[in-house]
Structure formats: structure tokens, C-alpha cells
């Protein structure tokens, strides 16, 4: 039988898949899973649409955009951060930009032509940032942003001052702040995503694949849930020692774990990362879907409305 091809994003929501493979939860269910590493979010979505992968771990904005084209099937919530205000972080280089607060940032965006925030476009992060800026009375403009969908490159850029500000999810944000501190580079974290709903990470399947292999989808989700449950029980150290080299191998190929993971700044930065609680897979809330969908319509990222019911189903949850 064909393995289930799934493309991962280097975000926390992918962690249960990684550990599930590592701990053998999928093979235990009789499911062979093939991890497909792709260069960027855009690539992952293209590959999904083109039918080259059967499933992806993605954010809500991606799901909205995929819904507009290929009628995917959003199955389940993979991970929900505990605190909506802390799901993303705005990082600024205070030294170069003179920005110390969210108000400074809003003022800088409004007045300085060249000032830009690095973030992945067409993503939950862009949605959240738009919403946050609007809450501070600023009409979002695409010219505010510097689109970069490789989170690692973005983190490096803001750490080394190549951009003055960036918006990053966990664990990138905590990692970058600590790493910069350890390297003697100042990096300030501004958090103001209080008005933003919780944006879960999602497991997305091709509709056709789900129709043809409904059992495999159920098995996958149940193994995923089992892996998440075990993760919640493991210690942070145990998870890190097992997961970090795996993450490097998958997303940052060529970085030698024995070299990278002992680097003092990296060690310090990893220390700062907190492992969240992974809930049972559940349905994507309708309000969240609709809020992001509305935003995507306004932005011109999608053209037509796609009702929640056509996209999200609980058919495969248990």
C-alpha cells in the first residue's frame, strides 16, 4: 500500500507527527507515513493542491485558501496555544529602530516609509498582525510587510538586525529572544495579540484521499492524538533530547546536531522554549474559520466564500 504522504510545517502543531513517527504510533496502527520536506509554506500548499501530498499540517489561513481552490478537508485541530495574546510575538531591534512599545511600532509604520515588519504573508500571522494593528487604529497596508515565509530565516534576520521587526510564533519567538541575548544582541519582545482569537494548527487532508481511505485518516488522527497525549506526559528534557535532532534533520538539513545543539547560545535559547499542552484533536471552531475567511476575502487572497460546512467535518474524529 502507498504510504500516507504528509508535508509538515516547522511549527509546534507538527510535533505530534514527528514524535508519533519516532515512537511508532503510526506503524502500530498499521499506517505508513512518509514525511515530505518542502522549502516553504507556498510550496507546501502548491504541492497539496497539485495532489503531490495527501495531507499537510497548516494554519487556518492556509486552510481558507486551500478551501477556495481544491476543496480540502479540514479534519482536526492539532494544537491550540494556551494564551491567545502569546501565540505570536512581535520582535523588534530596539537598538536600531528605537522602538520599545507597540505604540512606537504603530507610529513608525505610519510615518516611516522604509520601516517594515517581516512576516509570512497569507498566513495566520499576517491575519493576527492586521487585526492587532487595526486595534491600534492603523489601517493595514501591504507595504508595511516584508514577506518571508521561512520562519527560521526570518528569525535570523531579526536577530542579526537585517530587519527591524518581525512577527514570529512559538517556539521561534522565545528561542530568538534568548539566542540574541546569549549572543549579546538586544531583541525586544512586544506582545499584543489580545484581540485575536486562538488560531489552532490544523491537520488537512485531500478530500479525495479521505474518501478513498477513510480508515487511514481515522487511524492517522487517532495515532496523532495518542502521540499528543504521550507528549503531555513526557518531561521537557526528554522531548527535547529526542525531538531537537529530529527537527534539525527534517527542516534544517545539513546542520550537524552534535555541533549545533551544544552551541551555548542555542542551548540557552532551547532552555527558554516552553513545551505546551497538546489537546485531543477536535474541530476547528466555526467563528475562527469565518473570521479568517472574511479577512482573506478582504485582502483578495481568496475570491469566493466557502462555507465552513463544506470544509470542516467531524466524520473522521473517532
Amino acid at each position, binding site marked *: 500500500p502507498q504510504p500516507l504522504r504528509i508535508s509538515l510545517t516547522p511549527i509546534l502543531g507538527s510535533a505530534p507527527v514527528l514524535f508519533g513517527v519516532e515512537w511508532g504510533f503510526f506503524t502500530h496502527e498499521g499506517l505508513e507515513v512518509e514525511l515530505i520536506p518542502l522549502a516553504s509554506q507556498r510550496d507546501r500548499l502548491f504541492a497539496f493542491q497539485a495532489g503531490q501530498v495527501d495531507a499537510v499540517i497548516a494554519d487556518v489561513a492556509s486552510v481558507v485558501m486551500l478551501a477556495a481552490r481544491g476543496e480540502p478537508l479540514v479534519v482536526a485541530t492539532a494544537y491550540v496555544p494556551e494564551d491567545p495574546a502569546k501565540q505570536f510575538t512581535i520582535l523588534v531591534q530596539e537598538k536600531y529602530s528605537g522602538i520599545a512599545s507597540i505604540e512606537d511600532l504603530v507610529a513608525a509604520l505610519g510615518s516611516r516609509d522604509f520601516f517594515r515588519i517581516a512576516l509570512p*504573508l497569507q498566513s495566520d500571522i499576517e491575519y493576527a498582525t492586521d487585526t492587532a494593528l487595526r486595534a491600534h487604529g492603523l489601517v493595514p497596508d501591504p507595504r508595511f510587510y516584508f514577506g518571508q515565509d521561512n520562519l527560521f530565516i526570518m528569525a535570523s534576520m531579526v536577530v542579526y538586525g537585517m530587519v527591524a521587526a518581525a512577527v514570529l510564533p512559538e517556539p521561534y519567538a522565545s528561542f530568538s529572544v534568548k539566542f540574541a541575548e546569549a549572543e549579546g544582541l538586544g531583541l525586544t519582545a512586544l506582545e499584543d495579540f489580545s484581540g485575536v482569537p486562538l488560531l489552532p494548527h490544523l491537520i488537512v487532508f485531500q478530500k479525495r484521499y479521505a474518501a478513498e481511505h477513510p480508515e487511514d485518516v481515522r487511524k492517522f488522527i487517532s495515532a496523532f492524538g495518542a502521540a499528543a497525549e504521550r507528549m503531555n506526559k513526557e518531561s521537557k528534557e526528554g522531548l527535547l533530547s529526542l525531538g531537537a535532532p529530529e527537527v534539525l534533520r527534517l527542516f534544517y538539513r545539513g546542520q550537524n546536531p552534535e555541533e549545533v545543539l551544544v552551541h551555548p547560545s542555542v542551548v540557552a535559547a532551547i532552555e527558554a522554549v516552553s513545551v505546551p499542552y497538546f489537546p485531543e484533536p477536535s474541530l476547528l471552531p466555526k467563528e475562527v474559520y469565518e473570521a479568517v475567511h472574511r479577512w482573506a476575502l478582504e485582502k483578495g487572497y481568496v475570491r469566493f466564500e466557502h462555507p465552513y460546512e463544506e470544509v470542516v467535518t467531524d466524520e473522521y474524529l473517532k
Partner: protein
Amino acid sequence: MKQALHYLAAATAIFLLWALASFVLEQVKGWPVIPYPWSVAAAGIEYLPQWGSAFASSARRFFLSLLLAFATGLPLGLVVGASDRLHRWFSPLIYLLYPIPPIALLFFLYMAFGVGETVKVVTVSLTLFFQVLVAAHGAARNISPSYILAVRTAGADALQLHRHVILPAVLPEVFTAARVSVGLGITMLYIAETKLGLLGGPGSGLGVFIETYAMRTDLSLAGVVGLAFLGLLFYALLEVLERWLCRWKYVGKG
């Protein structure tokens, strides 16, 4: 006139083939994989201000790059090509450096030129520069000795030789090279506009436009059509320029 007609016919053919492909794929796959040309046109019109500003930015950028490449590559190529000694010493240098893709050196380019407009223009024109250089160099080596003899027997100095013989003699070949460069240059423009990250909103260039609306195939295809138009525009420009500068080539052929 007649040529314009053929271009029109070709455009129509592309249009029809495209529509056909859209239709067939829609039937086979069950969803509109490739949007129909008319929906692309509609999307383009809906976003006309952005599309127009993207087109204008890309066109300006491309024009600058082309200009820069020619202003530097042409004289250098002529001088190196026209002298046997310079040719022997410099052409290996050119050929050693030529295959190095400028984007591989992007990091250093960013350091030298920042992340703004300059680095894009520099990246594109660096690529074109070598094309022009190699073409001008080759053309200068192939100039008929009879032309050179003609002006030398009339007592021309080196500068006059370049002005009256070498430059006009290589122009046709340089125009051919320029036409080839347009295709290549547009590819490089796209890369320069998107490789580093998307800067400045969809109105700041067709590359950014295409990637920003990547998930809206109709809009992003409108951007791709924009790139094709841009290429065509420069072709037409070069054609007009050549017909004027090299009008001696077009006489006596009906």
C-alpha cells in the same frame, strides 16, 4: 503590419489553447485547476490599480537594468573584442566569471547594496551585463576586415575606428543579444523580486504580485500575463530601436 497580424494570431492561439486546457482540466479533475483566460482578465481588471503599479515598477526596474547592462557591457565588450591582445588576456577572465550566478552571491550583494531597490536592479543587470559583454565581444571579433581596412587607409585613429566601424557593425548582433536577454532578464527580474522575500506590497512589482496572490490562480496568472506583456513591450521597443538605428539593414529588401 503583417508581423503585428501574426502576433495577434499567435496571441489568439495561446488564448484558445489556454481556454481549452482549462476546460479539459476542469472536466478531468472536477475543479477549475487553470482559470479561464476571461476570468484572469476579469481578475486583472478588478485589481487594475495594483496590477498597473506592479507592471510599472517592474518595467522601470527592468529598463534600468537593461540600460545599466548595456552602458557597461557594450563598451567593455567592444574594446576587449576589437583588440587581439586584450582579447587574449581578458576573455578567459570573462568566461571564468560568467557562469557564477549573481544570486548565489546574494548575501554579499545585500551587504553591498542593501535590501532595497538597488540590489534588484544590480542583480538583474549583472546577469544581463555578461550576456551583453559576451555578445558584443563576439560581434567585435567578427567584423569584416574590409571595413576596418577602409577606414584605416583613410587615416582613422582608434577612436574613429570604434565610432565609425566597430560600434555600427556590432549593433545588429547586439540587438539580437538584447532580444535574447529580454527573456532571461525577465526571469531574473522575477527572481530578484521574490527571492529575498516579498517587499513592498503587490503593487511593487509583478513578481511580488504573483507571489502575493499565489493562492488565487486567476490573479497570479494575471501577473504572469503581465510578465509576458512586459517582455513583449521590450521586444517591440528593441524592434523599433533597431529599425531606426540599423535602418541600413532594412533597405533594398522591398
